[in-house]
């Protein structure tokens, strides 16, 4: 294996590892659910991208060309936002509290009311856009 | 080559699938006729197989042409084939009874029934321990489905217990398989016997714990004390044809006990030879007594019959522990007898319950039956047979059992337990019969009558009792031959493993 390629593999792996770790740090240390969501959704996805890239490089060099890790990346890119969306919908439905300094409380309230409770009430609410 | 050995497994599944697919699927009549005709064919095939096996001796069928010990094999010896035969006899009765209307009280009766047959036959025929597990699961899952047939609270309740216990049992089975594979390195039962014979001393106790775990599994299936509590509720809740078929299910447990503890841990097994007998002997006797107590304690007829099943299981297990030709021979005869009669009794309980109106099969005074003479005759025949009174099959079975005891201690214990339990059964049955048939309130009989198919089913099953007594001579010859065959481990191993009996891992 050429040396620079090894460096590249190492770089991508480290980059990926860092982002994966950062994502989980975000998950563990952010104060409310909505903020915790950001880390895993984004950082972890990129971290995965890094590790998968590292893997692609590694296998392409040591064995025959290996690019199928791309598939996982594509897959994660498609699904991660949807997971996040579903999670945040659940959180809204469960009326999870955002930390106090969160702005847009009206929007939050409305989000919490949308899709839950009596549909008529939702439509006739004052804060209806 | 002859594919007769595998026919008892493939024919039922083929029938089941056929019934699930168009054009059979659409009409109830087609479903039931296909099912019945297939069972008749199965019966013919299994009888042919029995005749063939009697002539050819032990033979095996290597699935996928992979020779033992590497591939899975089915083993046909007189014992296993007799059990398959018994299953088809019983199945024909049950399916005829079911086809009289019970089958339409829920979906998929016939497919599940046929799947159940597949599982039972597979369990009897297989010569591979893991494959035995698979077939256990086939028959169990089919029995779960059949158990809830026609619905009702009791069925659901019983099913929860039955399923959870059997799931736990399956887990134990797998633990045991893991131990046995991890120490013996093989799954073929004959090969396991070979490996056990040359087990390194440091593995002996491990194999023993694996072997004893198998005991738990089979004890649960067979319903031996203290693992028998599920049986009365389950069997008495099940739909009658299902309960009748279930009569053979416990026998699979005892059959497996016999197989495993006479083949794998047979005489050649050195320190492990007969290791289960110390447990089976007292547990079997206790099971008989508990079953007898259950018979007296039963407040409805189905429960009583279920307890009769427990007695039969206890008897069989006790015989398994004796490990002698006479005992093994008695096992075969008694298994056939008790299965047919108990199956018939479950059906009879249903008919009686139906004709007694609201009282059902509870042992309380009830309405006059529509066909008291016919049912009474059937009841007496069944009762005499199951109580082991002469001149029916139970009497011959009891003689075989009593004669199987060889040492004085065995005789004293076995005889007193068997005779005492017989007396208790006699008391229980005479009480049940006199309440069911004689303590009638009012003179009006209800409109219910047995349908021709139901009558046929009952007569078919109960005919076994007199016929097995009349032909007891040739039958005992058959059972002794089967016992000799099953106990002649060396010959079976030589047939199954050929000359490679000394192999040690690689072919």
């Amino acid at each position, binding site marked *: 294996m050429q040396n620079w390629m090894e460096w590249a593999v190492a770089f991508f792996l480290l980059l990926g590892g860092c982002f994966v770790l950062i994502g989980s740090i975000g998950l563990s240390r952010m104060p409310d659910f909505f903020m915790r969501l950001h880390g895993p959704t984004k950082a972890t996805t990129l971290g995965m991208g890094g590790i998968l890239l590292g893997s692609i490089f590694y296998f392409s060099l040591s064995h025959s060309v290996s690019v199928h890790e791309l598939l996982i990346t594509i897959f994660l890119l498609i699904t991660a936002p*949807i997971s996040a969306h579903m999670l945040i919908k659940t959180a809204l*439905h469960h009326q999870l509290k955002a930390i106090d300094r969160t702005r847009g409380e009206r929007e939050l309230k409305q989000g919490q009311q949308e899709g839950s409770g009596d549909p008529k009430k939702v439509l006739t609410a004052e804060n209806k856009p | 080559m002859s594919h007769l050995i595998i026919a008892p497994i493939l024919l039922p599944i083929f029938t089941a699938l056929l019934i699930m697919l168009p054009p059979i699927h659409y009409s109830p009549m087609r479903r039931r006729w296909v099912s019945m005709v297939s069972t008749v064919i199965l019966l013919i095939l299994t009888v042919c197989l029995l005749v063939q096996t009697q002539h050819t001796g032990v033979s095996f069928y290597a699935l996928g*042409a992979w020779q033992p010990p590497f591939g899975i094999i089915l083993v046909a010896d007189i014992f296993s084939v007799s059990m398959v035969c018994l299953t088809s006899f019983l199945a024909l009765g049950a399916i005829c009874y079911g086809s009289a209307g019970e089958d339409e009280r829920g*979906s998929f009766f016939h497919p599940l029934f046929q799947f159940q047959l597949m599982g039972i036959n597979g369990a009897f025929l297989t010569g591979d321990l893991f494959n035995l597990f*698979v077939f256990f*699961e086939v028959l169990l899952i089919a029995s779960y489905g059949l158990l809830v047939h026609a619905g009702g609270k009791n069925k659901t309740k019983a099913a929860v217990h039955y399923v959870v216990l059997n799931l736990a049992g399956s887990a134990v089975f797998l633990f045991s398989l893991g131990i046995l594979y991890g120490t013996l390195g093989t799954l073929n039962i004959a090969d396991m016997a070979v490996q056990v014979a040359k087990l390194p001393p440091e593995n002996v106790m491990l194999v023993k714990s694996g072997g004893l*775990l198998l005991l738990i599994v089979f004890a649960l299936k067979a319903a031996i004390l203290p693992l028998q509590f599920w049986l009365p509720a389950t069997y008495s809740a099940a739909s009658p044809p299902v309960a009748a078929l279930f009569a053979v299910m416990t026998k699979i447990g005892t059959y497996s006990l016999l197989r495993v503890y006479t083949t794998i841990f047979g005489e050649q097994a050195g320190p492990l030879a007969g290791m289960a007998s110390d447990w089976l002997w007292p547990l079997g006797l206790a099971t008989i007594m508990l079953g007898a107590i259950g018979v007296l304690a039963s407040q409805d007829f189905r429960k009583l019959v279920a307890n009769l099943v427990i007695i039969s299981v206890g008897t069989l297990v006790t015989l398994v522990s004796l490990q002698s030709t006479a005992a093994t021979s008695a096992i075969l005869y008694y298994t056939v007898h008790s299965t047919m009669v108990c199956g018939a009794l479950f059906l009879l309980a249903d008919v009686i319950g139906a004709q007694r109106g609201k009282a059902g099969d509870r042992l309380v005074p009830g309405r006059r039956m529509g066909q008291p003479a016919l049912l009474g005759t059937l009841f007496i025949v069944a009762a005499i047979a199951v109580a082991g009174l002469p001149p029916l099959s139970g009497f011959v079975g009891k003689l075989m059992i009593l*004669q199987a005891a060889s040492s004085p201690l065995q005789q004293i214990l076995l005889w007193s337990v068997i005779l005492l339990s017989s007396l208790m059964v006699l008391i229980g049955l005479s009480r049940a019969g006199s309440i069911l048939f*004689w303590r009638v309130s009012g003179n009006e009989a209800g409109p219910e009558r047995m349908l021709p198919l139901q009558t046929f089913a009952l007569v078919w099953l109960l005919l076994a009792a007199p016929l097995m007594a009349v032909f*007891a001579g040739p039958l005992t010859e058959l059972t002794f031959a089967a016992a000799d065959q099953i106990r002649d481990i060396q010959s079976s191993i030589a047939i199954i493993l050929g000359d490679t009996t000394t192999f040690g891992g690689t072919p």
Partner: protein
Amino acid sequence: MTLLWILLLPLLGTLVPVLTANWRRSACATATAIPPAIALMLLFYHSSAIFAGESFRYTLGWIPLLGLDVSIRLDGLAFLFSLLILGIGLLIILYARYYLSEQDSMPRFYAYLMLFMTAMMGIVLSNNVLQLWLFWELTSISSFLLISFWWHKSEARRGARMALTVTGAGGLCLLAALLLLGQITGSYDLDVILASGAVIQQHAWYPLVLVLFLLGCFTKSAQFPFHFWLPNAMAAPTPVSAYLHSATMVKAGIFLLARFYPAMAGTDLWFLLVSMTGLTTLLVGAYLALFKHDLKGLLAYSTISHLGLITLLFGMGTDLAAVAGVFHIINHATFKASLFMAAGIIDHESGSRDMRKLNGLWHFMPITATLAMVAAAAMAGVPLLNGFLSKEMFFVETLQQHLLGSLSWIIPVLATVAGVFSVAYSTRFIHDVFFNGKPKGLTKTPHEPPRYMRMPVEVLVVLCILVGIAPGYIVGDLLHAASSSVLGGTVPEYSLAIWHGFNVALLMSVVALAGGALIYINRKHLFDFQNTLPGVDAINTFELAMKSLAKRCQQFYGRLDNGSLQRYLVFLLSAVVVLAGLPLLQLDTLFGGRPELPVDAVNATGAAMLLITAFATVVFHRQRVVALLMISVVGLMVSIAFTRFSAPDLALTQLSVEVVTIILLMLALFFLPHKTPKQSSPTRVIRDISLASMVGVVIGSISYAIMTRPFNTISDYFLANAKTGGGGTNVVNVILVDFRGFDTFGEIAVLGIASLGIFKLLTRIPVFKPSSDGEGRPWALERHPVLLATVSQSLLPLALMVSVFIFFRGHNLPGGGFIAGLVTAVALILQYIAHGVEWVKSRMNIEYQRVVAVGLMIALVTGVASWLFNKPFLTSWFDYFDIPLLGKIELASAIAFDAGVYVTVVGSTLLILASLGKMTTSHRPVHTESI
């Protein structure tokens, strides 16, 4: 062969009444009488030879391996009993024709009667003890049927059950005795056993055998203390009483004493047990008979007493006593049967059997009265009647024994006392019924019975007189032949003369007659005294005992089985601990010598996560959703462990199965409570924890012991042959679809069956849809979030592509039909989740159960196809083909099999999940079938 016919004819006779049930009553009765009549003639055909001391044997093989053959022996004793059984049987048939009313089912009665006759004939003709026992039990069964003939009467049912229980118990004891005899002598052949008297009596088991044997005899012959069933069996129709309970069945026990006399008798133990029982029975029966107001009750106790007398005779162990016993058997049968029949006539024609009501019948039925008086006189032992003769012999024998040493005089004294009571009750029978004023409160006016109903009585009474007057001519040969076979050929000198001169025995008779008359005259005092004694109502006591037995059993059973699954599981798991744990204790060391692999930090992390989440699952198990999340991590970690330990296929399968399971559990949770209430007591929790830990320790230790042990396995064969024999490089997959394809076949069958069962469970289920979640929040309104819906549509083709890939790859690399099937199924389930049942159904309207069937059928057909090549089921085939431009491709039958797996998995999974999903759709499919 004629011997066999003597036995078979009554058996065939059971069918005759059934077949002639629709004939006129007389015709039916006549037809029924034909077989026993022929048998009787056949019997007579042998009489001269029998009287000459010959005996006949006939054997027909039945179950030689069990030592049970149809073996017939006709000797003097058998001849005597056959004569009684057939002769009196014929009379009973005639009698019953008139006795039974129009409402009674005469054919049924006759069938039972003939069955009984067969059984009795079987007992007396048996030359094989097992066969003897067979017929012995058959008498119990048939007598049960006969006693309960009037089943609508409570006392008939109870009496029948009591008789069955007592004689059944005795029968079982007898069986044990006979089997032991077989063990001792090595044969179940009666000839052999009778010839082995010395061996038997010197054997250590002799006392046990004797006790068991006597229990059988005494219960059947109603000996004290087992006598109580007999009076209660009087609920039977009188022909039954006359036949079974005087002439035949109760004599079966006596017959056995006589039959086994050469083998068993002659010891002190025999004497002690038999004679003392006989003596007690004799006294108790005679005493109690006097106080019975019921005619049949009186006769029943009298029968008990006379049976005791015979037993006592056999117990004395002298040859002459045995002869006297045999003689009394004959006499008792004749006079007692006729008395019973007379009682039946009285009952039949006057409507009562109560001697307090019956008075002065002499005026209404003089002929019957005369007959009854003669028979009763015979019973009392009046001279010139047969009863006198055997009773005299009895008295003589009591005088000549010295069995009790210096106390031997007690026996004749007590015998005389019994004789006194015997005379007293006989006198009562005569005086109280036929004289003693006028009838009181009878429902009808008594009159003479039909001519032929009285005829059997007449025949028997004539016999009583004839024997009494000319015993030598009438029964001399018979008695000699019978005694000869009892005693094994050597008959002592005895005289059947009416007059033996004045002797002590005659004095005893005179005392008995005088004393009996005296007692009867002063009976009032005795009755008063008897009334002060606490009465024992046998039938109620028995019923109560049976009820309390049932109740005890219920209590005992209930204590063991409280219907709790948890208890059953505790039993199961304790068994695991004990059975798997005990051998481990004998293991020196768990470590088996195979070096361990090193542990690295990542593995430690994985293990820690596994343990923590497993523990968390337990901790959070009451919050079900959380527990579900925890256990999915456990599953994930297990999959990762599989990847770590080089089992990629396992990891794939575990993962996909787990996701489906989680979805399933989620689906299920909708219908179940979301929280588990706290319910276990602390002790219960501690018990469970300790049991769980023990199981865990045992399993963990075994696992460790196995992993550290070196071993040989058959797996090398699979590695060596996967490519060449199975055509694939992924050995695990080749094992699955080829080497052990049959397992897989069973496995997909399980999956398919499970889905059918689930479908069955879900049909017609009473659904309840909670309107809010566990916290009381109403459900969200948005059913199908738009983002999810859109993306799931795009994911479907992607997932299908992946599953096709995994499917084809499986044979050579990790993958295969099962995983591919699950991927497809999950992708389709995602459509269900994202769009709902209706949406999917409108696009794909397939009945999944049919998919399951098709999948299994594919696998089956693939397997069966190898039959075409004369190969066993599931024999695989593969080959490589060069296709122009494309290159080399492999085709294998395993792929077709795997396709079956794939289709089955898709079908089953969807059937399971979609059926569950469908339950809640507003437009619920209507099932025409219930589960």
